[in-house]
């Protein structure tokens, strides 16, 4: 039991409990953006899937180059399971050919 005079102050434990409860309620009720409630949120598996995506260039079976996909492209594919991205090959500003379409759900 705390001494009477200790109740006249705020302890660090109080602050931690307050911050923890506020954080929990913020997340549980979706209060993060104003008073928003009841939002079924992002498809976290879609996000994780595209975070690991890479583009690889091959000459036969030899890997020539590998790079992660650009952030803007990744965010678009993560945004919606029905999102699509077309890849097109250009030279000197002129379209040579379309290399195909990537669907977020792939």
């Amino acid at each position, binding site marked *: 039991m705390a001494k009477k005079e200790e109740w006249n102050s*705020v302890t660090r434990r109080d602050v931690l409990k307050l911050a923890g409860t506020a954080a929990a309620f913020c997340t549980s009720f979706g209060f993060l953006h104003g008073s928003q409630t*009841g939002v079924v949120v992002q498809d976290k598996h879609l996000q994780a899937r595209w975070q690991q995506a890479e583009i690889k260039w091959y000459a036969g079976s030899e890997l020539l180059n590998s790079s992660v996909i650009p952030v803007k492209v990744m965010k678009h594919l993560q945004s919606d399971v029905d999102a699509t991205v077309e890849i097109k090959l250009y030279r000197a500003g002129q379209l040579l050919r379309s290399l195909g379409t990537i669907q977020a759900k792939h």
Partner: protein
Amino acid sequence: MEFHLDRRSTLSFVCKACGYCCTGKIIMVGPHEVLGMSCLLGISTSEFLALYTDNGGTTLRSEADGRCVFVTASGCRVHPQRPLVCRLYPLGRMIDETGVERFALYPLQSECKAEVDREGTIEAFLKTQGVEPYLEWSRRYGELYRRMVGLLDQLCVQGKFDAAATGATESADLESAGPEQELDRGPLSLWQDIDASLAEYCTAQGLAVPGEIDEAIALHCRAIAEWLDDLESRIGEVRNDPEEMREE
């Protein structure tokens, strides 16, 4: 996502219980929803939080393939007590800065078998989903949340929160709480655990623990409000004496 719909907007949604919508989602749960589901399963909220939640007790756990932990081949195991977000789906709901309620329609997953049309209204859809008690509890917990943010704001203004966050004593507290995974598994706050927090409160107050869900939630809100009353009075006193914050 645009929240441009209201209760008069047209919507009809017939769920075919295909389960696709229950996959790959983060299902947020409040303490009152945890209580409802734990009662249905015949376990305590403490057990429920440990077994079925992640992210500090704020979201339902998912299986490795992304399915909600409660989805089975025959449907949802907690359907009669399912959380608000599940009842609202495919809608999202928010209260904008002017206090007006708005809704957004989420794009359905491509495999979803549900029938979506414009024959009814959002109002009628919400009635079929029994959302009103959940919205009322969200509103009441929201009021408590705003008081918490107000208190934290006061503490920050005084520089107290920063001081506490960098203090040696608090570092030791956090370390003793265990690795990150353990923090993630356990609830962020005892207040998320209605059974445990009400047991403590009722013992201190000499009250009987309520048996009904609605009564328990009401008492839970009252207990949190009294805790905040106490903190507000103490913070008021601290404001007059900036050196007063102590370590426990």
